């Protein structure tokens, strides 16, 4: 079943779900999710269409200052909850696995604000996020990425004296012959695209919006 083959009534239901998620109205979103299942609409279409469109709207509203960080958290929670309802009617082997990202501020660096915003935005856009916090040693980041079978490692550094650890993670991945298993995206105040390229990172985000676009480019 494709979106284009749906009736207008069915499309309206998907729009209602999209609108409820974008409005971060969990109760309505849950009711609509059940209606979608009752209407025998393929839930995979709802996940693909309603979730993606809603995430775009939420991201745009955050970008223009209409929504704030807590709204991104709540949107992420809502999508997890409603996603679980919809996925019940999808055979386990047909559930599209979400991409997993391990994110951390590198060792020696206590700055959390930028990393938190990126982490929250990525989650509200449908990625599975393992946020390890601040001052995280390179070895712990790699260990976590292996453990959760992540597709990407995202590293924040706000200090010139901690940027080195972004390179260390990449160098260690190479030494451990794991470099091909993970995309690495970096960011933070002193970090530039040139620096990202010079240390062999796959991606760079100068701000939250660019980080999201970069994650989508690399993983989706």
């Amino acid at each position, binding site marked *: 079943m494709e979106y284009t083959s749906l009736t207008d009534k069915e499309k309206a239901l998907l729009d209602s779900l999209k609108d409820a998620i974008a409005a971060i109205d969990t109760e309505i979103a849950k009711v609509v999710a059940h209606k979608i299942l009752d209407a025998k609409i393929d839930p995979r279409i709802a996940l693909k269409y309603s979730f993606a469109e809603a995430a775009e709207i939420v991201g745009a509203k*955050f*970008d223009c*200052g209409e929504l*704030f*960080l*807590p709204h991104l*958290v*709540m949107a992420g929670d809502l999508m997890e909850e409603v996603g679980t309802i919809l996925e019940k009617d999808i055979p386990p082997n047909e559930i599209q696995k979400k991409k997993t990202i391990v994110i951390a501020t590198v*060792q*020696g*660096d*206590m700055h*959390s*604000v930028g990393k*938190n*915003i990126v982490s929250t935005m990525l989650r509200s856009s449908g990625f599975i996020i393992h946020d390890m*916090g601040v*001052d995280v040693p390179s070895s712990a980041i790699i260990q976590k990425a292996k453990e959760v079978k992540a597709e990407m490692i995202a590293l924040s550094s706000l*200090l*010139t*004296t*901690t*940027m*080195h*650890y972004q390179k260390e993670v990449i160098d260690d991945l190479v030494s451990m012959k794991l470099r091909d298993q993970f995309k690495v995206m970096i960011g933070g*105040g*002193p*970090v*530039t695209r040139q620096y990202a390229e010079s240390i062999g990172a796959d991606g760079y985000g100068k*701000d*939250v919006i660019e980080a999201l676009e970069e994650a989508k480019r690399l993983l989706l």
Partner: protein
Amino acid sequence: MTRLSFWEILKRSKMGPMLEEKDFDLLMFKKTQDLQKEYGIKYDPEKPVDIDGVQADRIYQAGVELFLDLGTYCTTTKRIIQVSAEELKSEIEACPAEINLGQGSDRVKMSHRDVEGNQDVIVIAGIQTAPFSDGEMMFKIYKGCAMGRSVDGIWGGILLKIEGQHDVIAGAPSEIYQYKKTVEILRRAVAAAGRPGMITINNAPTNPATIAMFDENLGLRRSDYMEVTGMSEMKVAYDDLNRTAFALAHGVTIHGTHSSVIGGFSATPEGAAIVSVAGSLQLIVVQKAETFRCGAVESRIKSRATRRNLWVASTAIQGISRNTRLIVDGSMGDHPGAGPGTKQYLYESAAGHVLSTVMGAHSTEGTRKFVVGNVCNFGTPLESDWMGEVCKGAVGMDREAASYLVKYLLAKYEAHLMNPPEGETFEKLFDQETLKPLPYYQNLYGEVKEELRSQGLNFIR
């Protein structure tokens, strides 16, 4: 009145209610938004300055209520540190209303300042925590900053290479070594400027390196201060509290900083102002600060001098200044988006420092473009002079005049905040032989100074 013991705070950090960090963040958001409505707090972009203090008083009361209701989240123990209203009242009253910093003839008194007050404003300038290319350059720039007549102290930075080739890395042995060695240069530079007892401040990425800089002869002294940081927003970790533990044992003044985040969990400008007050209370109660920087950052714009941030920080500062005898640091012009050598740097810096001073704060967080990156020598002594001249010139100014000036300045730079001019390094702005500003920069400085004088800023010189 007595202050709550630090050891009692630690005890509560191990016995308070447990909560997941995400739940604390969302609880703070909800409570902040409720308080915003309950107290009728409203940000009006047309009025970036609260002239009558009505909003400021409401923000102060809401900040007190938030701090008492919510407490401080300890990320180490995942518990909430809470205090009672009586304990908070006692803590505020027991905090000093004046302290002394520096030594000998360079000693200064830093006291509570009133809104529109005539009390001296203490200015600690210098290019805060920035990288320098080599020891000689660092010495020259520090010395130049220390010679500024309107400057009471200076911040240090870091040399990124040891012996010109080995990287300095936070958390590695190179960090302790290099911060300790570079603070010696800072101390020699202020002595060479004829101000051996001047306040010097520096802050390394990790605690061991920060603590290692304290040395009465060659480093930071007990007459300087130690900076402790509260995590945004309304959180603390044992890592932060280690600095407090050292400062209490060592006998050095504790200066706290905390930033609410506009667009973060405090969400709106109104919420960020409330959290700025609550975060300041956290600094004195939990982290035992005697002076503290009250302020905010934008989640998206890399400047502290945005219209919203000017309102958030200045109204929160005003609320604290009007309702307590605490010693507040504003430093609102410390991180412009524009770089040195540009008019916009001077405009942004002036907007922040004028408001900070008029609202009853000192400015002790140095000068620096918001994002320096790994560009070395990205600043000059002239920005320190500017910070000092603006702050001291704004003493005694009233809020009406400050509001007029800030609106004038915002009109000059606000449209360029997303893409501010990059600015130039010391080498491009100063004569390397005479260590004087190049004519272009000196003229630009003089031009902006005369412009602001004509708009009501009463420069002393």
